[in-house]
């Protein structure tokens, strides 16, 4: 049960991280329905990277080093496709993530 929870959390975190990476690109930011002026700064890519590493640690914690690292690499791959398909067919779904990130960025600036 714990292993399944860790895996699920890692998978969601990886999706989030990759969504942030995608949204940090102007093209995808506008696709998600957000005004270009509020686009994410590049430092969001560091946030995404940190989340990816944390997700990797979750995978290793749940599955051991060998299985965990392989699982992590495969989950990242699956998430890249998932994010790309979301952007192709339901870009508005990323709007939620975009808005939260945008608001955090605005707060940090002020």
């Amino acid at each position: 049960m714990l292993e399944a929870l860790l895996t699920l959390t890692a998978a969601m975190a990886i999706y989030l991280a990759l969504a942030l990476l995608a949204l940090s690109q102007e093209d995808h930011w506008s696709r998600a329905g957000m005004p270009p002026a509020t686009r994410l700064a590049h430092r969001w890519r560091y946030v995404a990277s940190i989340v990816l590493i944390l997700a990797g640690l979750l995978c290793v914690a749940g599955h051991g080093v060998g299985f965990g690292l392989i699982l992590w690499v495969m989950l990242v791959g699956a998430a890249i496709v998932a994010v790309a398909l979301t952007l192709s067919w339901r870009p508005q779904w990323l709007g939620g993530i975009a808005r939260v990130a945008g608001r955090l960025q605005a707060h940090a600036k002020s």
Partner: protein
Amino acid sequence: MDRTFSKSMVWLHSWAGVIMGSVLFAIFWMGTLSVFDAEIDRWMMPQTRLPAATQPVALDNIAQAVLPSVPAGASQWRVDLATPREPALSFSYKLGKESHAQQLDPASMTFIPDQGTEAGSGFIFPFHYSLHLAWFDTGKWLVGLAAMAMLVLLVSGVVSHKKIIAQFFTFRPRKRLQRSALDLHNLSGLAALPFHFLITLSGLVIFITIYFPQAHEAAYGGGGEKARSTFMAEAYGRYKRPKANLPGTLASIDAMAQVAEREWHGGQPYFVRVWHPGDANSYVELRRSYANDITMNLDQLFFDAGTGALLHRFQASPVMSVQRFMSGLHFIRFNHWTLRWLYFLGGLSGCVLIATGYLFWLEGRRARHAKLGLAGVRVVEGLAIGSVTGIILATLAFFTANRLLPLDLAWSQTGWPRATVEMGVFYLVWSATFIHGWLRARHAWRDQCWLIAALAPLAVTLNWITTGDHPWHAMVAGHHGVLGMDLMLLLLAVLAATAARRLGNLEGKVVHA
């Protein structure tokens, strides 16, 4: 090839892709199916759809059940123990050059009748690594060449991709087929790049002794059988002792398994093999299960058959463990359902990669070749159709034949075993798809997609009719492999129908434009 490195890589990528794409798709398609070869076996061999064992079976009981079937003079017999995915026991023996195999139900210790099929583990999996071209290992060498081509394609593909970062998440399905195909090609290639590279490299590493047959010669002082067998024994482990030509007995194998468990710190054997059965010098071989690690261990123990005394132990050296880790990354004999499904998705992404590569190449040259009267697109199109939708159709025909052909002995009158007829259907249909592809050209893509969409649910229906295991029943009875197979077949039908409609719309657009 051209003036710059970049241009030469683009040239290389196109040519290697067009020439090797067919073989590569076959390898990836069969490989993807092989991830679930045990489940395909359950589907194709209904009498092996046994419930999971509630308690481990005593090895001595197994020995007792199979020994009457071992003929005098057999050089060895072995039983592969049941696993969660393979509930039946696999018994086999060797008599001279002949080998004979049968399956047992562990609950009743009775033999399961011959299922008359090679199924997943006997046809689909070996197709993946040998293309069933056994003459002088031609198939394995072709697969090796394709694997090297794949590595070259991956590197040249990345080098050729000018806007890798900017287009990382880009997939525009509603654009022209050429654009959508390229987007999907890039996406499936990049997202699973570590998978594609490692699965290919690990596949090659498995066969180091085939692809570099003389590798040991310099270090072992020359060629010849002696040098080779010394190398193999030192690397992979081997124990042999000759027959005594005197009668002997078989001690408790369970007792030997207990010694093994101690030696292996809790590890369990995955098979039992008895060499020189009935002889005074008979010995028993146990090897440790692969279920819990990626690395395919080489832990092996040999016991004197009469006394149970431990004769020899072997395990992989640290360097050999690297080769076995790589092998394990590819074989995936371990117990890990999440990873198994992710590998399945990875394999499918490889199939999408190759198929979209062909589509992109074809769409990019269609107009020009038509205008200049060149045959290139026409030839490659037929090849691609047979290689992609064709092999999928042939596989479905294989499954359908499995459900339609009766098990009874009337087939022996044709001179062909039932399993051979099934495989014959596969090759016949596959050949036909190439001819269809060359005759119908671009329309054949859609034709074959519709045929896939029709044949896949037919296979599911035939399973229901012939075994009673419709999806709900399979779920309730615990036949998860069968359920999975039926669901995947239905999903295939939906995807094929969607693709067929999409391709139909595109053709409509061309006509109106």
